């Protein structure tokens, strides 16, 4: 066990190192200069440019820039080129904004997918199953931003309530209950949008896992024994079908960053994805690289956690 942990930590660190190198190279070898050091920008005098380049080590060779960057990152001194604010502080602030979106989205995904998937596995081939299957494909195929606009149009034209932003503007004088519920309401639509794809994929996965298990001999035995169908489905079959999902808990971690760019920019949500998008627009390399690095860490941590969970949950695997 310990050796497994040690081994995978070493392996993941090496991977992380390569990821950092690759992302650094992608950003720095791409043509064009960050807009702040763009010599075509008339606002910058040559002296300012030179100072800027020195301050951010842009005159040094790539490997030195790389070392500077990651040294600053690990000591927490890295600052954004755009406003000279600490990158980590900025990310933390935006992360707190994105977090509720992520939590509610995940909650919706995981609570909805199971009953839907299980039911369609039980009634395999029936009308319910077929329509759920079709719906799942529909939800996977719909472009997220298009869906977002459909929902916005519906809500705005029929309910006349605000949907954009994190909260209704000018509500700062009302009671905390109102403010809380207002925030929940603003969370609702973006998190539904964030969850649709997840619900579709996960419910399909639940269905196929259930089908697989339902085909096993012990389930057939249980059925033959005359146990009530609910007991067979929910006790015998579900328990074993659940196993692979435990590991998936680890894999949802990276969702914290990726995928929310479009939804956050439609809803003017000041979250991580939007920050990353704005950083890309402004060529704010420290932020892009840091976001990239953090998301790589999350991916690796996610797989690590899921491996560990598998170890804990599945008695068949022993190291």
């Amino acid at each position, binding site marked *: 066990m310990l050796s497994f942990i040690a081994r995978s930590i070493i392996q993941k660190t090496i991977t992380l190192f390569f990821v950092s190198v690759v992302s650094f190279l992608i950003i720095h070898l791409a043509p064009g200069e960050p807009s702040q050091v763009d010599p075509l920008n008339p606002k910058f005098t040559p002296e300012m440019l030179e100072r800027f380049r020195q301050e951010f080590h842009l005159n040094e060779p790539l490997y030195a820039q790389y070392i500077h960057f990651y040294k600053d990152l690990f000591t927490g001194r890295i600052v954004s080129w755009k406003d000279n604010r600490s990158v980590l502080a900025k990310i933390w602030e935006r992360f707190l904004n994105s977090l509720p979106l992520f939590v*509610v989205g995940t*909650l*919706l995904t995981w*609570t*909805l997918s*199971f*009953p839907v998937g*299980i039911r369609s596995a039980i009634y395999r081939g029936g009308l319910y199953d077929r329509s759920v299957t079709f719906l799942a494909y529909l939800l996977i195929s719909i472009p997220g931003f298009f869906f977002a606009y459909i929902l*916005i149009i519906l809500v*705005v*034209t029929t*309910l*006349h*309530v*605000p*949907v*954009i932003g994190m909260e*209704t*503007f*000018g*509500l700062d*004088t*009302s*009671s905390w*209950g*109102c*403010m809380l*519920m*207002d925030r*929940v*309401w603003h*969370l*609702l639509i973006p998190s539904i949008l964030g969850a649709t794809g997840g619900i579709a994929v996960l419910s399909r996965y639940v269905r196929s896992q259930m089908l697989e298990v339902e085909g096993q001999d012990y389930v057939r035995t249980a059925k033959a024994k005359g146990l009530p169908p*609910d*007991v067979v*489905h*929910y*006790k015998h079959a*579900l328990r074993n079908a659940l196993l692979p999902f435990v590991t998936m808990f680890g894999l949802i971690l990276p969702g914290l960053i990726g995928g929310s760019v479009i939804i956050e920019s439609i809803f*003017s949500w000041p979250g991580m994805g939007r920050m990353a998008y704005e950083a890309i627009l402004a060529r704010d390399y420290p932020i892009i690289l840091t976001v990239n690095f953090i998301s790589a860490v999350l991916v690796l941590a996610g797989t690590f956690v899921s491996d560990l969970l598998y170890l804990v949950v599945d008695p068949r695997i022993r190291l």
Partner: protein
Amino acid sequence: MVTKRFLILMPMLVMVFLFQSYLWVPTYEEQTTGNPDRLYQYITPSLGDATSLNPIISSNSTSSQIESLVFEGLLDRDEELRFRGRVARSWDIFEEAYFYVNSGAPVPAAGFVDGPGIVQFIETAKKKADSLPPEVRETLRRIQKIVLIPPEERSVVKALKSPSGNQPVRKIRVHIQAPARIKMTLAEINQDLFTNLSRLLGEDYFTSFDPVPFVRADPSVDRQLLARWAGELLPVTEHNPVIVFHLRPDVRFHDGRILTAEDVRFTYQAVMDPANLSPRVSDYEPVKTVEVVDPLTLRIVYKRLYSPALATWGMGILPKHLLNREALRKEARMLGRDPDTFTMRQSRFDRHPVGCGPFQFDRWESDQFILLKRFNGYWEGPPNYHRYVMRIIPDLLTQEMEFYSGTLDSYQVQPHQVKRLEKDPRFQCFSGTSFGYTYIGYNLRRAPFDDVRVRRALGMAINVDHIISYVLYHQGERITGPFAVQTDYYDHRIPPLPYDPEGAVELLNQAGWKRNEDGWMEKDGKRLEFTLITNSGNDIRKAILAIAQDAWKQIGIDVRTDVLEWSVFIQERVNKLDFDALVLGWVMGIEPDLYQIWHSSQTHPHQLNFVGFQNLKADELIIKIRQEYDHAKQVAYCHELHRLIAQEQPCTFLYVGKWTAVLDRRIVIKDLEQNGLMLYKKITPTKTGDYTFHFNKWIKLAEMPQFSEE
């Protein structure tokens, strides 16, 4: 089965929790849900952030919108566009006119007279004026006082730059022995004063005055230069319009200090201070002196006749005690900056303004919102709204959605939306004509545009109504001249050019252009062809480009079109006068001052009369309008000029755009009647379409109001 129930109940609970939040959120209909203060807030959107909130520094529309609420000027314009006193209770305008006694010119029936003689002469003429022509009589009637200023001696230092520029500047002392001068005080400003006086004093009484003998340069300079300086230093006649403002005694700044004439003078000095780089310098350049007579009286003397002068005093008044030299030095020291180079531009006042307007500044979150609170000590009584919020939302669609959901109170409608939003019972719509017009300008220096018949023909070939209805969705109005349509200066009797392609061909034939066998217009073997340009980024101008090209092709004119990037368009083509014809727009002010755009002295590169309009009659009228203080006369001159320009067609005037704004219908005017009763009124736009005129009396009601007149 517990698992089953759990699996089904969990998502249900989550969903129910999430969806019930809807009940807590204020909707458009129930904006007070959980937020009763909403009715006392006015929230308005803006596409861009403000730059500075100091009225003498900023020059963008968001800034000036906020400034108009935080600051207050001496006066503004009322519903009919007449001047209305704000900080100033009232004002008097009169004139002080001077002329030097020209002892070398004979006065009819009196011979050569000295100073006291002239005074005497005019006084007598005034007494028995009945025999004089009416306009001279009228002029004499206005003269209230005549004073003789005895001869005086003074000297000034002039700096002389060497022509090559590499020698140091020479300082030359000029001694002046000014002759006696007559000062007249006129009850009303009269630009014809000296013309009329010369009928009394002799044709060349003023023109023959030679100032050169009265000046002496030390060390001496060449004659020509001396003559020029003499002309500047001893102007034979001088109009000095004077405005005396009487301020209200009870106007306070938001920090409680009483506003006095000192503050007004300080504001003027701040604008003129080169360190502040104020974009408003040109407005106050004609001012000679600003003197504080007493704390509530201010006397402003102008160097010359300048009729737009009064309007410039609508600018917000700065508090002297917060921005004077000492205050700025103190602030600089606090911030650790060099007190000598620290100016108003660096001051914290820029982002925390203090004025005397109906709202006081509260908070400004960059790129998010600017928050104003109402000012309870406002001299006219505090506004009904408690808060004014300007939200910065760069995306129009987001603005629109926020408006539909009740988190914005107003929305600037785009032309294609007007029809739909006008019908919506939840909103009230206001529309008005904007102050900008779009035109096709021709470079009159180039053939064939030097021929008025060609210009008329070009204008007649274009169906402007067609542009207005299809391109602008009817959100535009045809115009015929360069004055603002809302004002009296615009002459509505002038008919627009008819849409008449055949007539256009006829006119071209008269001008010597004939169709050749390919159908193109031709003269002396040269085809009628030119390039029509405009700037990129404006779809409407691009559409006009295409429509004009097509229309002109119909009458046999070969037009190429080109869309240029704005900086190239302005710097390379317009400023260098390198174009045949262009589609562009002007934004007009209320003041009918056309000097910069239409006067023949402004036709050089980098000046605004780039179409090259030169007309002696028009020049004369433009100057007259500039110097006329009498509204009726000004209007008459404007109409004359308008007709002249419409005749000359230096450019094809197309249309002025219309704007439309929507407001929540529940916003009404709440006013106290004289008998103490509360009265709610529907918001009605003023004659000029300004619906926010009574903004201080606006308030939002919880329910949709029903008005009896509806």
